[in-house]
């Protein structure tokens, strides 16, 4: 049963930015099958910029390969079968049903001139609906859902896309704690299947630690450290965020201690 974990995503000396201003400098790391990697860093350290480069939304120098294929120059449809992005910016402005929205996740797998989605694709979408607890809501309009429900719909759509790597760009930042935990648990379950990995940017450190088994610490566009989540030291967090995060958290918890 023992198999060598495959590398799903590899970054080598990646630099990128906006309009000539380089935000990310020479970032290298790789993500193996089954890995859940979270990038920690203060605002403006280049986390989101890096994610945008990984999913082909932003030009970069260096190399980013997804399952061995260079992201730059890969057709969108092929890239979407390898990498999906779930971001906080997603909104639903048009009256689609939950089912139709999740089915759109199959766009990258659709065929022919008309973009038909076959029976297997519909089954996959229905399966994702069930897994995310949305089956009962499938005929509801996405414009009428609560923020937590809507985010679950987008998660189900991301699952339906069936990529190898899911990128998270602070998808939980405006949700109640209950929904945040729910989302993280659904992602952990998803990543447990073979050939999958998650790369996340989560604002909430405790949530990131709940999801991640690997951490990349970033500061000012560079990787400070790349370590297993269990080895994170308070001093490292202080170096990244510039405040004593650990004692802040202890203090916060102290409110509930007898």
């Amino acid at each position, binding site marked *: 049963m023992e198999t060598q974990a495959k590398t799903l995503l590899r970054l080598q000396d990646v630099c990128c930015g906006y309009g000539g201003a380089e935000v990310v400098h020479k970032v290298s790391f790789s993500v193996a099958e089954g890995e859940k990697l979270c990038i920690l860093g203060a605002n403006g350290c280049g986390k989101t910029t890096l994610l945008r480069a990984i999913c082909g939304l932003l030009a970069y120098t260096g190399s980013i390969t997804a399952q061995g294929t260079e992201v730059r120059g890969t057709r*969108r*449809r092929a890239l979407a079968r390898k990498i999906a992005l779930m971001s906080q910016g997603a909104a639903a402005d048009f009256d689609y*049903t939950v089912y139709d929205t999740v089915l759109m996740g199959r766009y990258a797998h659709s065929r022919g001139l008309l973009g038909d989605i076959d029976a297997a694709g519909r089954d996959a979408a229905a399966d994702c609906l069930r897994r995310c607890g949305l089956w009962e809501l499938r005929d509801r309009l996405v414009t009428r859902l609560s923020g937590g429900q809507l985010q679950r719909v987008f998660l189900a759509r991301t699952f339906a896309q069936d990529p190898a790597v899911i990128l998270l760009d602070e998808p939980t930042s405006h949700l109640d704690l209950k929904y945040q935990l729910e989302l993280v648990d659904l992602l952990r379950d998803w990543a447990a299947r073979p050939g999958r990995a998650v790369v996340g940017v989560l604002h909430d450190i405790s949530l990131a630690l709940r999801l991640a088994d690997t951490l990349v610490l970033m500061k000012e566009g560079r990787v400070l450290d790349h370590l297993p989540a269990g080895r994170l030291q308070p001093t490292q967090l202080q170096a990244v965020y510039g405040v004593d995060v650990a004692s802040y958290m202890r203090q916060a918890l102290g409110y509930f201690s007898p």
Partner: protein
Amino acid sequence: MGRLQRPGPGTRRGRFGRGPGLRALALAAAALAALMLAAGVGSVPVSPADIARVLAHRLLGTPLPADFSPILEGLVLNIRLPRAALAFGVGAAAAVGGTVMQSVLKNPLASPYGLGVSSGAGLAAALMIVSGLAGGALGSLALPAAALAGGLAAAGAAMALAGRLDRGLSNNTIILTGMVLSLFLNALMSTLSAANPEYSQRILLWQLGSFSGRGWDAAAIVWAVTAVCTAAFWAMGRALDVMTFGEEQALSMGLELRRTKAVLIVLVAALTGTAVAFAGVIGFVDLIAPHVVRRFFGARHRVVLPMAALLGGGFMALCDLAGRTLASPSEIPVGSITALIGAPFFIYVYFAGRKRG
């Protein structure tokens, strides 16, 4: 895992009953009724049965009754029907163009006229009128042809400019360049009109839009272009669906956004340019029809596009009917009618929808 029964197309149970089938049929019937009404009502009323007889006579060769007035036949065939058909076609074109632009730009207030098409067509038409080329030796199609060319040129210029400013062709860039170019071209046209007061009345009338005095050739061209473009949009329906979730989402879902957007916009420009060339700039249908259709049929483009065509066509035919009968013998510009009915209706639909949310 067993095969799953798909929960049917457009299921919106608990809100609108089962599927869009019945409602689609009702809308198609209403659109046909509007067309018949538009062809039938007037100083000489013609019954739907008589319209059908004339049509059958022309198309299938069935004989007309012996006492059937040839004047009535001529009235139906050469005046009423082509006019109603043109109004229907232009309404359908506007509604379909509006549907696509709203989705492409992810903006509920987007309009196909915003691409600069109408301003370019207007300026070209004004130039033709002022130079005396319109309606002269070049024939009745010269003015529409020039207007279409002007509209396409303006849209092309707007898109080229947008592409230069922003390689990603983002929505705000398209909206802004279209708007700025429209204002610029409109200013040119106003200047032209002011400098040639003897033509300003005609330029203004062209601007307001009308279906009067057009023959079958105009109706046939508009119908053909509308049919081809609508079919193309329908084929790209899934891409349009994906686009409504925003550019970043659409890209990461696998859509070649830039290329798709460019194709859609070129088609919308051709569609709108053709409609404007024959009927002038008639607003509001492009804005209203997609909203109304989405409220009753959901947002899926495979459903919305044909339904918007029916609604926009039927509505425009009725507006033209109102325009030519309410103040008969003088005509109220059809653009005024669409705005008079459309504005309050739009506010009602839009805000009623808000409240329910």
